[in-house]
């Protein structure tokens, strides 16, 4: 009972990247079809945002993802601020960047150590890994814990923090609470340096791809909370032009919408895209560590995303340290919004890549229309493309090894914890 | 009484013996882990029995008050703590705080006839009183025990009941709610025994213990027979956590059941007893 046929619909749901399956069809030794299927049940966020107050959007959209709620809360807050014609600057902006660093650290370390590294080291999981390399896993957990602690100190809790709002924060942390992070962050810089070294030494499957990399870019900093949208193919737009360039498509095999870039069939978002587009904005230490870990100025092997993630973790620790050291309690915890009708856009760099929000508000601040484009839906096509390539290169592998390699390929993207990790059903049809 | 410096701190006791009484009821014989701690109690008093790491429950002492060791508790496994206790064995450790609370009126009842009314596992808190009365049998008039259980399989202390029933100086009547044909005893609720029992209401002191609903109907029947509230003693159950009147949980009108009870002379609480959700 299709009501209307619209091939382009930007008015789309943000899915939690969730449960996934993979279907590969091979005929006469030739890959015929690869489908990366997301069967996470739909949750209709964009639909039930309609009619809610602008101020509720950060808390509601946080629930899209338990791993990167800050990305959603921040995207929603900034989109609302855009719609209401206001901006958050100065110490409040710094505080936002600081909590976002916490999310990067937490998410990247979780992915690198608990989800991705076991693939390289041949373990089923980090717990088994910890039995052989207890020190490594314990250090990783401490690093991850520090990321969470930043979230807790500023946001109240690590998953779905409560303290973020349109205009800033409900209550800004006391100076002593933030200063207490300095010591641990100094340790974390060292620990993340070790991480870069460790993961740089992994064996990376030989696979390269000439990606179209899309990310934010900011003239003064490595992009986290703000910037223009750029690509390595010449795209350079303000975020409010997002929907003019990127369209979302609904395919039969997925409950997630897939993103397409106008004029290019697929593109990459996330750490590699960010790194490739913003290498110069990284700290000296991070650039140096990247080089020592075998990364070039541009990374074209998706399996090396774990190294890029480690480099970004290092950067996030350094950045968090800087922000913590400079923290002074702001005069007011938030800028008071003035309610008005309008349309606003927000785009931030979630750990997995750009996360875009667009809202239209009525004069009472009620949401008329909402669009959220999370990074995973943008990467979906690229994931299938990589899978295609990896499968073709590894057709001679036994089935279980091939399956594991495919999983690893998907995990390169850290698309979402439940699918990036280990919920892959591989069906190989050999005709 | 050797009181612990801190009444909230349990004293470790080792399980000397576990006896299975019924499908869900068991008796623990306990000896102090340090070998010296001793605990004198009076019939009707209870201890807080603590399962290490599991929680603490108030349990009446069911042993002979004339013997200080071992310490005997009969426990019905109804909640998480008591169920976990059921899994304990000889040599395991529990914590003991106590004894706490008021006692059955074994002294006050001297010279009177005694009617003991028990329902289900409510026989356990009365057993020390029975031991005491039988040990001092000459001080009492007629002694009757009326005991109700759900089925013949739910009769607690069966062999002791037989032994008591065999005595010439005590009347023991047991009734069950339902039974199969092989059962040669009585069927009906315990109140029925009270309705028809040949005790002299004027001369009787009644000790009643069982679930509150059973006590309610037993008291009603005793009253109907002419036993006044000041001749009736009941053992109340409320949420007891600290057992020393600090925590407030077991409050019952002007009383803390842990401290002012668990045994009450019924006229003290008759007006409270009928109030809902007090």
């Amino acid at each position, binding site marked *: 009972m299709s009501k209307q046929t619209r091939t382009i619909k930007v008015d789309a749901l943000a899915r939690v990247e969730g449960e996934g399956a993979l279907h590969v069809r091979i005929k006469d030794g030739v890959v015929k079809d690869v489908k990366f299927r997301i069967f996470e049940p739909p949750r209709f966020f964009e639909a039930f945002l309609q009619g809610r107050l602008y101020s509720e959007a950060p808390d509601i959209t946080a629930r899209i993802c338990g791993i990167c709620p800050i990305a959603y809360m921040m995207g929603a807050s900034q989109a609302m601020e855009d719609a209401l014609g206001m901006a958050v600057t100065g110490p409040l902006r710094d505080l936002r960047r600081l909590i976002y660093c916490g999310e990067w650290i937490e998410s990247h370390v979780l992915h690198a150590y608990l989800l991705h590294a076991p693939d390289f080291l041949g373990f089923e999981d980090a717990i088994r890994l910890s039995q052989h390399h207890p020190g490594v896993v314990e250090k990783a957990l401490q690093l991850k814990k520090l990321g969470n602690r930043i979230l807790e100190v500023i946001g109240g809790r690590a998953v779905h923090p409560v303290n973020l709002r349109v205009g800033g924060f409900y209550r800004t942390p006391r100076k002593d609470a933030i200063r207490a992070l300095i010591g641990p962050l100094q340790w974390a810089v060292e620990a993340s340096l070790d991480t870069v070294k460790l993961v740089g030494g992994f064996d990376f499957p030989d696979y390269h791809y000439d990606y179209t990399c899309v990310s934010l870019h900011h003239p003064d900093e490595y992009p986290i909370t703000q910037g223009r949208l750029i690509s390595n193919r010449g795209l350079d737009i303000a975020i409010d032009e997002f929907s003019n360039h990127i369209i979302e498509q609904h395919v039969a095999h997925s409950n997630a919408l897939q993103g397409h870039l106008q004029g290019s069939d697929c593109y990459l978002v996330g750490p590699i895209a960010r790194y490739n587009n913003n290498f110069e904005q990284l700290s000296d230490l991070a650039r140096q560590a990247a080089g020592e870990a075998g990364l070039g100025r541009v990374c074209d092997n998706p399996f090396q995303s774990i190294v890029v993630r480690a480099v970004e973790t290092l950067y996030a620790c350094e950045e968090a340290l800087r922000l913590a050291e400079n923290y002074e309690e702001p005069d007011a915890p938030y800028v008071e919004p003035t309610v008005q009708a309008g349309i606003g856009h927000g785009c931030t760099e979630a750990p997995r890549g750009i996360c875009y929000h667009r809202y239209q508000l009525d004069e009472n601040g009620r949401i008329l229309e909402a669009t959220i484009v999370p990074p995973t839906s943008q990467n979906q096509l690229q994931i299938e493309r990589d899978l295609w390539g990896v499968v073709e290169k590894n057709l001679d592998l036994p089935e279980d090894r091939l399956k594991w390699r495919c999983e690893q390929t998907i995990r390169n993207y850290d698309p979402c914890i439940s699918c990036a990790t280990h919920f892959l059903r591989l069906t190989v049809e050999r005709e | 009484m050797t009181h612990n410096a801190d009444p909230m701190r349990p004293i470790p006791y080792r399980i000397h013996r576990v006896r299975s009484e019924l499908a869900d009821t068991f008796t623990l014989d306990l000896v102090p882990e340090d070998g010296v701690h001793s605990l004198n109690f009076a019939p009707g008093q209870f201890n807080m029995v603590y399962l290490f790491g599991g929680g603490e429950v108030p349990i009446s002492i069911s042993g002979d008050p004339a013997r200080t060791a071992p310490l005997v508790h009969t426990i019905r496994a109804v909640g998480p703590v008591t169920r976990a206790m059921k899994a304990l064995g000889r040599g395991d450790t529990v914590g003991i705080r106590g004894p706490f609370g008021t006692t059955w009126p074994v002294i006050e009842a001297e010279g009177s006839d005694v009617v003991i009314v028990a329902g289900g596992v409510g026989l356990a808190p009365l057993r020390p009183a029975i031991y005491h009365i039988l040990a001092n049998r000459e001080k009492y008039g007629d002694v009757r025990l009326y005991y109700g259980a759900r089925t013949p399989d739910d009769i607690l202390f069966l062999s002791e009941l037989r032994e008591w029933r065999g005595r010439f100086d005590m009347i023991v009547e047991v009734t069950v*709610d*339902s039974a*199969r044909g092989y059962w040669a005893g009585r069927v009906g609720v315990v109140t029925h025994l009270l309705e028809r029992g040949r005790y002299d209401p004027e001369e009787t002191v009644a000790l009643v213990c069982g679930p*509150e*609903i059973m006590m309610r109907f037993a008291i*009603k029947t005793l009253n*109907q027979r002419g036993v006044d509230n000041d001749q009736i003693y009941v053992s109340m159950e409320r949420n007891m956590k600290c057992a020393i009147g600090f925590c407030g949980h077991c409050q019952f009108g002007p009383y803390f059941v842990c401290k002012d009870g668990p045994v009450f002379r019924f006229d003290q609480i008759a007006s409270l007893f009928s109030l*809902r*959700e007090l």
Partner: protein
Amino acid sequence: MRVEGLDRLIKEHPFFRDMDAAACETIAGCAANERFNIGDYVFREGGAADKFYLIRQGTIALEIHVPGKDSIIVDTLETGAILGWAWLVPPYRWTYDARAITLCRMVSLDAHCLRGKYETDHTLAKELFKRFIPVMAKRLEATRQRMIEKAQARSGGAGKGG
């Protein structure tokens, strides 16, 4: 006027079927109309039992209150049933709670008034009592039936364990 109405209600109630008109009229002299909303208690355990009720419409639950638990419903009585005989049995106190579980319309009959009448009119008493006995017998039987079901359910479970 009102008494006449009650008279008719009594005559029409199944409990008084075949009762002669004069007796019904006498009884009506002790009657009153009562109405109970959902959740109202008609009487509570322990209260003085000085009435009995003809249920004209609605359902009454007889309950035993158990501290800490949901009240136990021992019986439900519906339209056409009678409620209460504690007024016939010393010490004349209600044994249960009676709670309306739907809107209930009832005729209540005052015990003192009735006693006054039947103690001098044993024919009336006989007519009244002989109606009570079968009602009680039926309820007793129903209760025992449920006891059996419960006992069977219990032993059935245990039997399988062996």
